């Protein structure tokens, strides 16, 4: 292997957000002419690190060096000028503009003050040809499949002629052929001396494409070395470590079956099935964990259970009785409660008070006729604040003023106030710091001991093995593995969650 000079390095990088330390004294090197792979669990700090390099976020402490010179990027434009391009996980595109316009947005080619359409079009066609896409560049971007849109996002970064290119989970929406094309382009860029930072959850993919690997865990680097000799068990070990997080012990409280789903299906807009004949059951006092990669259909399955999708197929029973038509408020009345993955978007009404958020699903509890008793509402809120140990100055403050962990407890309180039979939790520990995570886990366990059935979704291996009585693995909408919570091996779970190569989108 030829020598790869270091193009950019971070030394003692620290990033503090209100409530959490996302990066703790991180050293990271980007080697030129090589693929620098970055891996870690959700919330480990990968995205934060990339945002720092791309100038979207500034470091709280520490420094960034390029070719021995200290640099500082206060905006994304600064970083672009220094030759750093980034393809974000979320698409930043305009569906109603044409593909060409999307590629050139913010950096239009001008000729005497007006946009040089012909030139832009020519370059866009060249880029598409290079990415082996037979697409008309004049059509609106919204016509394309998500995977093709991601290709456009990549074309946009290529167009900037970046010397360092960051790809944050670029393959999560791509089909296998598109992944192969992307890998050829990455290989070509590497030969041209571009330093590539590649983030992915798909470990086989990383081993296939990477030259160097860096593993992040809870904001710290736990492994950094050339890719030779690295295998999946090594990566999993570096991601998870030996020391277990603080999981509460399992209790022997499992009772009758509460919830059963048979052959639940959900059609995808672009065709195919987002949830593909999923059947499972949960017993009282049992915690069942669903593990899988992003896009495996896990959240969609929970949404089907809550009745959010009128087109969902299959049958479901609660306490042996069919669950009824897909109507969210009726399902909540029946005893289904969901704690959504995206607290900000789905879980909370940010501008409402903590009290109002907690009781939003269960106002009927405090209502006689039409009259809502504010006194009884406040009493119940006080009970739940004490019971779940929520740290607040006043329950009248807006919920947005709380830290992630306390916000999550407000959402859990809201779900519990409806006296559910089954609690669905989508990534219950996302975006909250370690201490608060342990508390959320303890809460889940004690709820199960009280006889609640809990079905939770996670992308965190340690969480799924540490917390679940039973583990179900999903990939591409299907159940691909079932394990016992006490005896499951992490490597088997990871293996089951991998998307097999022959299953193209």
């Amino acid at each position, binding site marked *: 292997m030829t020598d790869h000079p270091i193009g950019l390095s971070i030394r003692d990088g620290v990033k503090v957000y209100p409530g959490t330390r996302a990066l703790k004294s991180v050293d990271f090197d980007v080697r030129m002419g090589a693929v620098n792979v970055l891996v870690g669990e959700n919330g480990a700090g990968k995205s934060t690190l990339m945002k720092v390099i791309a100038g979207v976020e500034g470091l709280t402490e520490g420094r960034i060096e390029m070719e021995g010179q200290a640099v500082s990027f206060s905006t994304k434009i600064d970083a672009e000028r220094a030759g750093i391009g980034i393809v974000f996980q979320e698409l930043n595109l305009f569906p109603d503009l044409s593909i060409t316009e999307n590629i050139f947005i913010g950096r239009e080619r001008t000729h005497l003050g007006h946009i040089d359409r012909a030139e832009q079009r020519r370059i866009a066609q060249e880029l598409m040809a290079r990415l082996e896409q037979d697409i008309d560049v004049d059509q609106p971007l919204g016509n394309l499949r998500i995977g093709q849109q991601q290709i456009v996002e990549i074309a946009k970064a290529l167009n900037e002629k970046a010397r360092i290119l960051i790809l944050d989970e670029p393959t999560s929406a791509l089909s296998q052929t598109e992944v192969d094309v992307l890998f050829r382009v990455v290989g070509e860029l590497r030969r041209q001396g571009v330093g590539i930072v590649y983030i992915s959850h798909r470990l086989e993919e990383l081993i296939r494409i990477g030259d160097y690997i860096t593993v992040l865990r809870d904001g710290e680097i736990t492994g950094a070395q050339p890719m030779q000799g690295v295998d999946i068990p090594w990566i999993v070990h570096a991601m998870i470590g030996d020391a277990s997080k603080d999981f509460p012990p399992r209790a022997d409280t499992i009772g009758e079956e509460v919830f059963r789903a048979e052959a639940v299906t959900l059609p995808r807009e672009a065709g195919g099935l987002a949830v593909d004949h999923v059947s499972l059951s949960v017993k009282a006092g049992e915690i069942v964990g669903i593990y899988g990669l992003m896009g495996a259909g896990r959240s969609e399955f929970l949404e089907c259970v809550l009745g959010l999708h009128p087109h969902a197929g299959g049958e479901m029973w609660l306490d042996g009785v069919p669950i009824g038509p897909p109507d969210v408020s009726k399902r909540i009345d029946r005893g289904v409660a969901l704690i959504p993955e995206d607290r900000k*978007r789905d879980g909370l009404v940010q501008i409402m008070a903590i009290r109002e958020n907690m009781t939003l699903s269960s106002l009927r509890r405090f209502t006689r006729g039409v009259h*809502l008793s504010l006194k009884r509402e406040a009493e119940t809120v006080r009970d739940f604040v004490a019971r779940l140990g929520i740290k607040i100055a006043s329950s009248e403050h807006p919920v947005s003023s709380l830290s992630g962990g306390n916000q999550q407890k407000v959402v859990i309180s809201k779900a519990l106030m409806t006296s559910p039979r089954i609690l669905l939790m989508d990534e219950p520990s996302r975006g909250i710091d370690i201490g608060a995570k342990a508390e959320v886990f303890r809460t889940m366990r004690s709820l199960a001991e009280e006889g609640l059935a809990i079905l939770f979704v996670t992308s965190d291996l340690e969480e799924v093995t540490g917390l679940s009585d039973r583990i179900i693995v999903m990939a591409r909408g299907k159940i691909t593995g079932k394990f016992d919570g006490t005896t499951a091996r992490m490597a088997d779970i990871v293996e089951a969650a991998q998307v097999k190569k022959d299953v193209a989108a």
Partner: protein
Amino acid sequence: MSAIDTGPNGASAQNLLLLLLKARTFIALIVVFVFFAAAAPNFLTTANMIIMAKHVALNAFLAIGMTFVIITGGIDLSVGSIVGLCGMVAGYLLLNGVDLGYAWTIQFNTFEIGLITILVGVLVGVVNGVLITRLNVAPFIATLGTLYVARGLALLSSSGSTFPNLSGNAEWGSDTFRWIGAGSILGIPVSIWMLILVACGAAYVARNTPLGRHIYAVGGNERGASLSGVKVKRVKMYVYMFSGFCAALVGLIIASQLQAAHPATGETFELNAIAAAVLGGTSMSGGRGRIFGTIVGAFVIGILSDGLVMMGVSTFWQTVIKGLVIIAAVVVDQAQSRFEARVVLRQQAAMR
């Protein structure tokens, strides 16, 4: 507020400032009132007070309905036209009754006329609600459409002319129609009593019923509310129906006060109603607003325009001044939200 002190003086000064900002519309009301009491002759007489209150009431009805709509994140531009249409409906029924053909005509008494007129107003609200919740038309466009349709229907009902002499007929029991606009109980006009009733009812719904809480939740985060089991579509239907109800009341009152119904009545009333709601602290992006604030806002606008008239200020200047007051109100509102968020964050930080 049980503040965690950032130093005794700092905290109390901060809380005082916050209190002043929160009470700003009320303070504005007092300032406007005191100013005109000193500057305009006859301003403080009882007769003038009652006339002004009657003026304010008309806008206040519309503004209450508008407040709920805006809290859900919508807007109702059709209220002015509903006022016109409902006035015409009342006038038509009073003068002509309903002709069934074969020389049969049904005549109505005052109560029945009031009921039918209100139903028409609510029905326009239902149309707005269906357009918005079932057909996914943006509230601005849907209610702009009904604004034109309702106004056109009002004009069609009389071919553009006025229904005059709405004094009613004792034989049919409709001679009491005047009483809605001109009568009074305990020296206070009927329309003011009606306003008190509607305002208290609306404030009660907002504060003490699940529906009220749902209205705020829908405006604050529609997706989050629906995932929490709130029936978003039903809540939206209710607010547009209530807005139509309020507008129908105004149509009735005006027709009764003038004893005539003119199809152009109520033009641009919707803008005054929006202004009153915003002045009272209702956020156009939804989720925030209070009935009491809206009433105070309606009084500020009403007293401002009546007072300026009494002082002999030109109507052109009146319009300019009204606009400036509304802009100032929103600017201060933004400052308050930012300031309040900072205070809360600081208290929360002190907890850790």
